[in-house]
């Protein structure tokens, strides 16, 4: 059996930040289903928010975030996020991040949506990529042990405390048990539950489902962010930086329609507002070809596009055949980010002893009902670092090893065996890809930007049917190396659990707040719903409760942009 004090699951920004913070003080390893540099953090383009400039202030960053969250963000957590931001950016500067620079040599910053100040630190439109690679370098420097292409299947919990991990090693094709004192889950989001998403194939919400099945609480899963500008068709992201640098949105009449929805912030209103505006334009017949709207960058000029948005240009040219220097590009909203996740406290701890979570997989609730551009990358490094620090404290205090995995291991092995066998689906033509497609379509059509009771109920029914069909499917080939059929099978299982939870939580919340918009309840309702949705696994499925929002300074007022 392999042992480590701490295992960080996930090699993205949150995971690498946690591991490199803890390294040296405790025996920490990173386990990741992808080589760390392949993590989806590398696709982030826009930047990391931090109030660095003398004219900006931490307080104003806090306020923008609280307001952006539609008052559902926990203000104590937001204070931590914004006040530790500048320090972490400095730490990254020293670690060697190749930022873009201002004339006087400081880290360059740009405007992203919902911010009162240009405060997103960037490196052209490769911000996530360069920081991911720098943190990977730091992990090499500190000699952090990594298990690349090892797949977390289940958490082993004995008597309410983490005791180890049940994992699948893709290269050998075998399962392994890792014994440890603490686990940090940094497994990212679940975008692949949706048909239209900016997320990578690997973003299947594994950590959230695994934690939920092991007894951890999830929170605010109904809040799903839809990014307004993704390439029409492929949904590859066009960063908010494109609007931050001055891009305009036009409908089929050539109107800059955002003046109808957010007259002051225009294109730089928060994402929930812009996404709804776009769908509304399309619905009312002002979409181009009835399907999309145009993002126009032509007036920025080739030089600026080349310098600031090289990746956006490259992606647009390749995947739409249109060069944004010459012509507007067709865009549509798509799923982008999970505000919900594994509920944690300010130290990233969950309700399971020894289990921590950070990054997009977690919900410490800095984003509330809607995340601002640039705040997620910041969250990964701020809370990744906090998780790393916390785990060092925990391990040095609690020196005794937890119980050896016993019952939980038996269950995990049983579940594992259940994946295999000869296929006897309800419908002989059924297969895992069909189930995934139907789930994806259901989520995008019925649990999307606009929601309503009847459609959400329909989604819940469809998903229940899919789960039943899923349970009769088996994987034919067993312990083989690089068995991606098996991975697909497991991931669809994780996504079905999450999709059901998202749909049920959305059905429950009879108000509109941030990214959650109910056409049958279009108003925000602070009296009944100024609280977090808490979700845990019950006997028969997910159960739901509420938890108050931490409000320190800013009382909820109406959000206008």
């Amino acid at each position, binding site marked *: 059996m392999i042992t480590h004090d701490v295992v960080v699951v996930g090699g993205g920004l949150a995971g690498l930040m946690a591991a490199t913070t803890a390294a040296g003080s405790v025996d920490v390893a990173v386990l990741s289903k992808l*080589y760390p540099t392949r993590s989806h953090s590398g696709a982030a383009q826009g930047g990391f928010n931090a109030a660095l400039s003398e004219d900006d202030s931490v307080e104003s960053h806090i306020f923008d975030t609280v307001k952006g969250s539609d008052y559902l963000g926990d203000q104590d957590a937001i204070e931590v996020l914004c006040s530790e931001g500048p320090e972490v950016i400095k730490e990254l500067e020293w670690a060697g991040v190749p930022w873009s*620079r201002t004339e006087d040599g400081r880290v360059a910053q740009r405007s992203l949506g919902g911010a009162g100040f240009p405060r997103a630190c960037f490196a052209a439109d490769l911000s996530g990529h360069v920081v991911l690679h720098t943190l990977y370098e730091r992990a090499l420097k500190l000699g952090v042990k990594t298990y690349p292409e090892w797949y977390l299947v289940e958490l082993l919990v004995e008597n309410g405390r983490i005791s180890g991990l049940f994992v699948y090693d893709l290269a050998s094709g075998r399962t392994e048990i890792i014994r440890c004192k603490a686990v940090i889950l940094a497994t990212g989001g679940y975008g692949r539950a949706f048909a239209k998403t900016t997320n990578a194939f690997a973003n299947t919400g594994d950590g959230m489902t695994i934690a939920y099945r092991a007894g951890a609480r999830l929170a605010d899963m109904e809040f799903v962010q839809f990014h307004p500008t993704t390439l029409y068709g492929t949904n590859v992201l066009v960063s908010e930086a494109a609007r931050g640098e001055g891009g305009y949105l036009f409908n089929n009449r050539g109107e800059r329609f955002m003046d109808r929805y957010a007259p002051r912030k225009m294109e730089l209103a928060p994402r929930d507002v812009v996404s709804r505006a776009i769908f509304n334009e399309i619905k009312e017949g002002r979409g181009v070809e009835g399907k999309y709207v145009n993002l126009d960058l032509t007036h920025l000029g080739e030089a600026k596009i080349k310098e600031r948005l090289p990746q956006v240009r490259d*992606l647009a040219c390749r995947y739409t055949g249109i060069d944004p220097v010459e012509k507007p590009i067709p865009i549509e909203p798509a799923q982008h980010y999970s505000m919900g996740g594994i509920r944690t406290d300010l130290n990233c701890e969950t309700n399971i002893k020894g289990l921590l979570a950070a990054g997009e997989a977690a919900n410490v609730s800095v984003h509330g009902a809607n995340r601002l551009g640039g705040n997620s990358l910041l969250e990964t490094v701020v809370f990744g670092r906090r998780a790393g620090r916390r785990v060092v404290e925990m391990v040095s205090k609690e020196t005794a090893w937890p119980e050896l995995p016993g019952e939980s291991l038996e269950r995990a092995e049983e579940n594992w065996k259940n994946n295999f066998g000869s296929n006897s689906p309800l419908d002989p033509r059924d297969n895992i890809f069909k189930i995934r497609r139907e789930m994806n379509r259901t989520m995008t059509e019925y649990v999307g930007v606009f929601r309503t009771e009847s459609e959400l109920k329909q989604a819940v029914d469809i998903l229940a049917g899919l789960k039943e069909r899923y349970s009769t499917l088996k994987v034919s080939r067993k312990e083989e190396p690089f068995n991606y059929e098996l991975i697909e099978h497991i991931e669809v299982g994780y996504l079905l659990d999450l999709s059901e939870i998202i749909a049920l939580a959305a059905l429950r919340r009879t108000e509109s707040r941030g990214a959650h918009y109910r056409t049958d309840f279009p108003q925000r309702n602070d009296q009944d719903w100024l609280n977090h949705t808490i979700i845990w696994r019950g006997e028969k499925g997910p159960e739901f409760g509420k938890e108050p929002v931490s409000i320190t300074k800013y009382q909820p007022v109406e959000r206008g942009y």
Partner: protein
Amino acid sequence: MLINLSIDRFDPNCDRGAYKQQVKVEAKENETVLDALIKAWQQDPTISFRRSCRSAICGSCAMEINGEPRLACQTLLKDVVDSNGNLSLGPMFGFRRLKDLVVDLQPFFDSLKDIIPWVLTKNNHDGRMTPEDAAKIENPATCILCGLCDSELGDGREIGPAAIVKNHRLALDARDMLGLVRLQLNRKYPEEMAAFRENLKSFCPKKINLPEV
């Protein structure tokens, strides 16, 4: 259009050697090779290949497409299929084949350790860097560690190509204590370096273009 994919298959548990499997898929010419491969996989889920971002930033899908080193998600079908819709896919040449299109990348990632693969920040660094200095490292810092250069140009003896790229990125970093001294590690004569730069430029999916220093 109908694409005739010819995919290298190899399962170490039962095959003595690799063979080609033909799979037909329907795809649009503006779709990528990765899109076509995923459709093939949905017909035969036993095919193993790596992918994640589908936007040329994670480096997972590096392979030989009609014998050329490319990223599957960055390559449009119309640019590579012949008039009969034929397209052939194989694993990167330069690495040990593990299964189908999946190769052993551990030696590749380990090769970075042949240099000192992190910035050794000067003690008196004040947090600033001129935009001109920043511009110098921008291009080499876009390397996504896909492995294609090591597959194509690596000779297994010296510092590997991707490690050389990283070495440049670090040597040109104004914060770095070692700076240009690092380049001695490359152990390449100027004319070899020049040839290397040109070769790399010709296929690197991120158009890494090392400056002459």
